[in-house]
């Protein structure tokens, strides 16, 4: 066998796999979303768009991402900056910081349920401090904003680690000479951060933001664990239509919406944080 076919042979399984299980299913989603009883129809999309939960689900999902992702970016930047400053205990601290990376969103939801449920630790603490007499039902349907807050905390807790890890590895790629030069020219720590770290971190920021925003649009199990169906989100509705309502066409229409906002977010970050050609480290 000629050697020049070897690389193609080695790529073949992965390519076939991705075509069958990644490209083809996404085409299928688009087809399912505009099909009804075997023919072309916009009915699934109309059904979805006119359903009373659709606007709420879309709104809460986008709001959640808009609140969580910027906060995570700030937290992760602070964590990464702190870690890179450390000389002793660096690997231990990094391990602790990255623990949530291995946890699922469902586990994170259950973890924060232990804190927010009626007989949970937040109520116990408040009672211990004498603030309240009776435990408060934080996660009831009349407290939708408390559920939102709990979801935000759970998401911050679980998924900031991934942003931090990406940023720490990105910071490791920035040559020390830039900082030394900055110091020579009298830049203080803050200036070095804004003028050197942030601009050179752009590729890492870009992938971290894309990754996190997309994952935020897919939020599902955390919300279910903390709020049941009180707080509607797109992924939860997709699941509902697939299972409770047994209508996979409408479920696919929802999937198409998630896909749409995901691609829009990706394009936005690719443009907004574009790395000029030839400006890589």
């Amino acid at each position, binding site marked *: 066998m000629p050697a020049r076919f070897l690389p*193609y042979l080695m*790529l073949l399984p*992965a390519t076939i796999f991705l075509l069958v299980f990644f490209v083809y*299913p996404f085409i299928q989603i688009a087809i399912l979303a505009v099909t009804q009883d075997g023919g072309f129809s916009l009915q699934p999309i109309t059904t979805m768009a006119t359903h009373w939960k659709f606007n709420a689900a879309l709104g809460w999902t986008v709001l959640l991402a808009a609140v969580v992702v910027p906060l995570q970016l700030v937290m992760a930047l602070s964590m990464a900056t702190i870690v890179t400053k450390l000389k002793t205990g660096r690997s231990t601290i990094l391990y602790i910081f990255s623990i949530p990376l291995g946890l699922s969103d469902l586990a994170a939801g259950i973890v924060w349920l232990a804190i927010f449920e009626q007989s949970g630790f937040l109520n116990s603490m408040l009672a211990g401090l004498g603030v309240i007499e009776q435990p408060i039902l934080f996660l009831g349907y009349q407290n939708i904003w408390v559920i939102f807050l709990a979801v935000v905390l759970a998401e911050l807790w679980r998924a900031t*680690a991934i942003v931090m890890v990406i940023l720490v590895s990105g910071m490791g790629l920035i040559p020390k000479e830039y900082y030394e030069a900055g110091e020579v020219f009298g830049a203080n720590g803050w200036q070095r951060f804004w003028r050197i770290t942030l601009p050179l971190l752009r590729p890492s920021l870009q992938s971290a933001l894309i990754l996190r925003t997309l994952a935020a649009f897919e939020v599902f199990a955390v919300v279910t664990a903390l709020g049941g169906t009180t707080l509607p989100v797109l992924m939860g509705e997709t699941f509902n239509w697939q299972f409770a309502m047994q209508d996979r066409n409408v479920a696919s229409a929802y999937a198409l919406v998630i896909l749409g906002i995901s691609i829009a977010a990706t394009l936005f970050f690719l443009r907004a944080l574009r790395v000029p050609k030839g400006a890589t480290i």
Partner: protein
Amino acid sequence: MSNPTVDVPRTVSAGGAGRFLIWASIVLLCAWVLVPIYLLMVNALSSPAQVSGFPKSGLPGFDFASLQFFAGFAGVAKALWNSILVAVLTMALSIGIGAPAGYALSRFDFPGKEVFRMLVVMTRAFPLPLLALPLAVMFIRTGLDDTALGLALVHTVLAIPFAVLITFSLFSGIPLELEEAAWTLGCNRWQAFQRVVLPLVLPGIAASAVFAFTISWNEVFAAAVLTIENRTLPAFLIQNLNVSPLHLKFAGGAAMVIPALIFIFAVRKYLFAMWGIANR
């Protein structure tokens, strides 16, 4: 000699205040990560009555009734077994398919290389768990519905970009000269790979395998969509959330968290290398 000695106290005290601030924030951030896990463990290690009792002391009751209840609950043992089965299949599939691709990308220059890289990178711009919806139809037709293999195939799509990029960087870290030396000594390509390259990359490959395992272990949405009888642990938990008592939820949560902690500990050395590469 005198100047440095004058300077020393000032820098130490300034550095001391900064040090203190840094360590204070580190302690705070560690608490932020660890305390919620601790609280979950407190609940998991308390009796059902203690779990729904109020107010809570914040100390575990060291009562295994909740965990026993969870372990004996109908369907839990099977769900655990399914989770492990799916995760092992995902691990094997993603390394088996991804590693050759990673090797090819690191060792050869060929037309179409960029197209393949784009295909791999593109997977990250898509909400992958949604794949489960159309695949549910496809799997019913092919008899893969509600099987561990069917779900593992979807989880492999999630894991394969990592497998390809991680193995790519592992192989790139081994100088080609080592392989060439083996060739001149009479090894063919496969023997050289097996005897020279493989021993060097094996730990890294193991780490990316563990990573694939973790991805599958944690995945909820596709698992819940694609399995009915053969539920994995996350799918089982989410399906029963609204009907299960609190102690069952917390014991289940703990059962998901503890293995994940071990996995992350096992691959901690490689986490940063993985994501450093995954950036590009």
